[in-house]
């Protein structure tokens, strides 16, 4: 599972950093490294761009996993450089941004947008795999999640927009229910497609979601 991100347009980063002249930059060695949105190279590139704008980069680091506890320790090691900065630019997914923001009172600003939780489908192609809905039904849908694989997130079967096994929204994409049908057929479990699924509970875990593991 990876948090899939894309870099914000540099103009947007420039605009939000406008009031700040001294910046400390964080990258992340896990998800944004894999998606080339906030690894060592991208952090170095961002340093260069900010310097070109006339900003002082007080320091930078690529932490192993920004959302991990270790991040707090690493922040202490960079205490002085962070202290010298007026804003912190974070090139990790939103989990890392929020983790870092929880440790510091200075403005913490994301340089990337977090898109979805996904897996690498083919090299360099990441695909949404789970919407974290809290009511997993893929045991009945041949391991294919209709919440994410169907653009409407339907659970009771295909809409009228399916055509030759493809989706009306994007003809390159498979219709989730054709995939589910084909696989259930191989498994000899097609009856599952006739099962009625009740309306979902959108509050299995009410927002803001918090779970205490004992």
């Amino acid at each position, binding site marked *: 599972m990876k948090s899939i991100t894309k870099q914000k347009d540099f103009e947007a980063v420039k605009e939000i950093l406008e009031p700040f002249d001294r910046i400390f930059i964080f990258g992340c060695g896990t998800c944004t490294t894999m998606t080339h949105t906030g690894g060592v190279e991208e952090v170095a590139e961002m340093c260069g761009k900010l310097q070109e704008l006339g900003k002082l980069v007080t320091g930078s680091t690529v932490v192993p996993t920004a959302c991990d506890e270790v991040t707090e320790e690493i922040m202490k090691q960079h205490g002085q450089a962070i202290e010298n900065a007026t804003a912190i630019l974070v090139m990790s997914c939103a989990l890392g941004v929020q983790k870092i923001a929880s440790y510091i009172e200075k403005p913490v600003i994301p340089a990337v947008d977090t898109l979805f939780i996904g897996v690498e489908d083919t090299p360099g192609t990441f695909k949404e795999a789970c919407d974290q809905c809290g009511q997993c039904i893929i045991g009945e849908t041949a391991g294919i999640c209709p919440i994410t694989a169907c*653009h*409407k*997130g*339907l*659970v*009771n*079967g*295909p*809409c*009228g*927009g*399916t*055509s*030759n*096994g493809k989706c*009306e*929204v994007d003809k390159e994409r498979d219709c989730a*229910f*054709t995939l*589910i*049908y084909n696989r259930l057929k191989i498994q000899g479990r*097609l009856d599952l*497609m*006739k099962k*009625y*699924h*009740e*309306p*979902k509970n*959108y509050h299995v875990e009410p927002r803001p979601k918090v779970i205490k593991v004992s």
Partner: protein
Amino acid sequence: MAKFKEALNSGKFVVTAEVGPPKGTDITETLEHIDLIKDKVDGINSTDNQSSVMRISSLATCVLIKQRGGEPILQMTCRDRNRMGLESDLLGANVLGIDNVLCLTGDYVTVGDHLDAKPVFDLDSVQLVQAVRMMEAGKDLGGNELNAPVKFCCGAIVTPESDPIEPQLMKYEKKVKAGIEFVQTQAIYDIENFKKFMQYARKVNGDVKILAGIVLLTGAGMAKYMNANVPGIVVPDALIEELKSAEKGKAVQKGIEIAGRMIKQIKDEKICDGVHIMAIGREGVVPDILAAAGL
């Protein structure tokens, strides 16, 4: 009993048509279309932000149809409202004298004119049918009592030309089990294929009445466009050739002739229980189609 339900129960060949509400507050043309067809059909659908293009609401348009003396069929999609919004509109529709509802999933927002809008799809079409039936039993989807229940003649749609067809049929069976009373199909053009669908449908159907979808062809270009771009619609080559053969400026006339001929065949051969005519933007010609069909 509501007029449309009576027509379905009567055993007669049922005809419905539809109006697409306008984008804006000028309803002159909409009212003209309603007046032209209201006495010639058994029910008039009002589409619900069709093709994900924002327009006057389906509910408001149904009220207009009712005011003009027509029998409205409220199309409800799951795209723009969550379950509370849908249920509350069902209550509202019923007290305003709207007795018929057609439950659809709805097109996705990105095919329409509000590309950045949040798609809802809290319910799907099967669940919406269930919601209607629950509210008829006096309870809402939260399990709460209504002070008085709703009463609807409730329908859904099916796409007989969907490919692959089996998943579509399995969903159709769920709609039948949920308790629909009528079906308006996606456009059909290949009557032989449609007969095969009807053989299947009759097996799972119970008392569900099936109205074959007839979309007016306005020219060979439109037919080809639909073949390439509209899922579940297949216009056979022979019909495209026939449209091409029309004299210049007479393609719509040819389309009316084709629609009339198909309706007549469906009626004469008792292939299904009626037709639903979609003239998409040319509602004014519905009486001509009916005349061409000998109705």
